[in-house]
């Protein structure tokens, strides 16, 4: 639907609504981000570089990017597998599972952190077992990874599901009648149409992970140079009364956010689940 008929073109009322909407978005969304941009750049490029390359900041950014990348990889694989199973297989508890997948959208991220501590923390359900086996999850990088996997779980599943639902089984059957083995069918017939959806879900996960705060702040222990991620580093700088440094580091994350959001939209259009 590229064109809207002339009779439905917005009249005066419609244009007033549009003006109001643009003003709302401009003031509520754009203005704060512009303030962030202005403050981040206010000290000049040198100050910006200094703030970003301060050892603490650099470590936090690196940790954030790495853990987000590892999470995204796992998410792309397991999210696709989960969508596949939920759409294609019939098994008891399928509906329940399908509902459960949306849980991370409904639950506060801070509560996610609390739950993870209750599970993996020193006095958690698995605390004793973890202590004897020498594994460290809470207050360590695996905790960060588990938190990220939890909060981003629905993205890939929900992106891939509609595409799977629309896939015509005849394509698969046609490939099989042409003598293709299961692996070839998967690689050549089933996967290509899913790819844009997998990518768009992955991009959304990655972007979300870069900004994640509530779950990580509880579960990671926030140990500088060990488990301190970028958003928590920012929080520390703000608490310490240095919003200038915080704004500078924010710029890096903002750049990622804009680029990833743009890419996510483009991928969604490509995947045909445009909205």
């Amino acid at each position, binding site marked *: 639907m590229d064109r809207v008929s002339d009779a439905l073109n917005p009249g005066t009322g419609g244009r007033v609504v549009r003006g109001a909407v643009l003003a709302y978005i401009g003031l509520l969304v754009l203005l*704060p981000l512009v303030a962030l941009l202005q403050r981040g750049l206010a000290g000049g490029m040198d100050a910006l570089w200094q703030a970003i390359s301060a050892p603490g900041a650099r470590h936090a950014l690196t940790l954030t990017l790495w853990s987000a990348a590892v999470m995204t990889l796992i998410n792309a694989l397991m999210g696709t597998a*989960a969508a596949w199973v939920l759409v294609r297989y019939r098994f008891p508890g399928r509906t329940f599972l399908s509902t459960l*997948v*949306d849980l991370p959208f409904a639950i506060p991220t801070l509560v996610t952190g*609390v739950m993870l501590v209750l599970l993996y923390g020193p006095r958690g359900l698995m605390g004793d077992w973890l202590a004897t086996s020498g594994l460290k999850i809470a207050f360590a990088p695996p905790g960060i990874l*588990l938190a990220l996997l939890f909060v981003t779980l629905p993205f890939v599943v929900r992106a891939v599901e509609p595409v799977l639902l629309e896939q015509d089984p005849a394509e698969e059957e046609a490939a099989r009648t042409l003598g293709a083995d299961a692996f070839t069918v998967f690689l050549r017939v089933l996967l290509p149409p899913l790819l844009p959806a997998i990518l768009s879900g992955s991009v959304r996960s990655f972007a979300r992970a*870069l900004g994640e705060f509530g779950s990580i702040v509880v579960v990671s222990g926030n140990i500088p140079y060990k488990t301190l991620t970028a958003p928590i580093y920012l929080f520390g700088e703000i608490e310490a009364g240095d*919003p200038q440094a915080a704004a500078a580091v924010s710029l890096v994350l903002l750049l990622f956010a*804009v680029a990833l959001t743009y890419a996510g939209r483009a991928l969604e259009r490509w995947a045909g689940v445009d909205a």
Partner: protein
Amino acid sequence: MPERKRLNPGQKLLLALVLAYLGLILALPLAALAVRALESGPGMLLAIFSDPAALEGLKLTLVLAGIALVGNGLVGVAAALVLVRHRFFGRGLLDTLVDLPLAVSPVMTGLAFLLLFGRGGWFEPWLTLAGIKVSFAFPGMVLATLFVTFPFTLREVAYVLLELGNDEEEAAVTLGASPWQTFLLVTLPNLRFGLGYGLVLTLARALGEFGAVLVIGGAISGQTQTATTFIYNALEERQTPAAYGMALILATASVLFLLSLEWIKRRRDKEK
């Protein structure tokens, strides 16, 4: 819909893998909270309902969520209509802009509002002059909540609008309906499931918002402390029963949201 077939061993393996994964990532942490709640009995909840600060926090969170629901519900529908149906300069830019709150860290959101309204912020001189307090006060928290919940209704409604096309609206127009009648009688009823879905997501996000309200609000007990920042402070002060109690309340609310989402989906599919 594939008929119920026996799964072959490869498929069983994949199913087992997915079940194990979802169990590990989602179900296990949720179960940990449930077990903890059962262990401590009503004590956890009592810690909340006998604590005035906790109740204040809960109330504040509900008020913030209510404002987000109404504000972003109304604007979300209008903005979706503008984004899908209007053609204007800068529409592509707007399309990315409205999604940004999903990708911007809540901490950055709080910081951005601090830079506008806080000490040394853009608007600070005027605000002091007018005697209005935004940062570390209610108005700032309202703004932060509106920011983080903005995309939800908009996206769900925009998606439905796009699917719907505008045949029915054209029909309404040829039958003599005014733009307002067309919207109220034809467009809006068709949006109801998408709108409901978006509103539940908005509510869930608003209730759970933490980073942004922490930064802009400061989590001052009895003033700017929300349900989530209450948990945070309680954890810091090692008041674990209170923290877990509040977490349990919020988790219960989430399960209710989840069920409403499922209910909306079913209603929608039934009418398809």
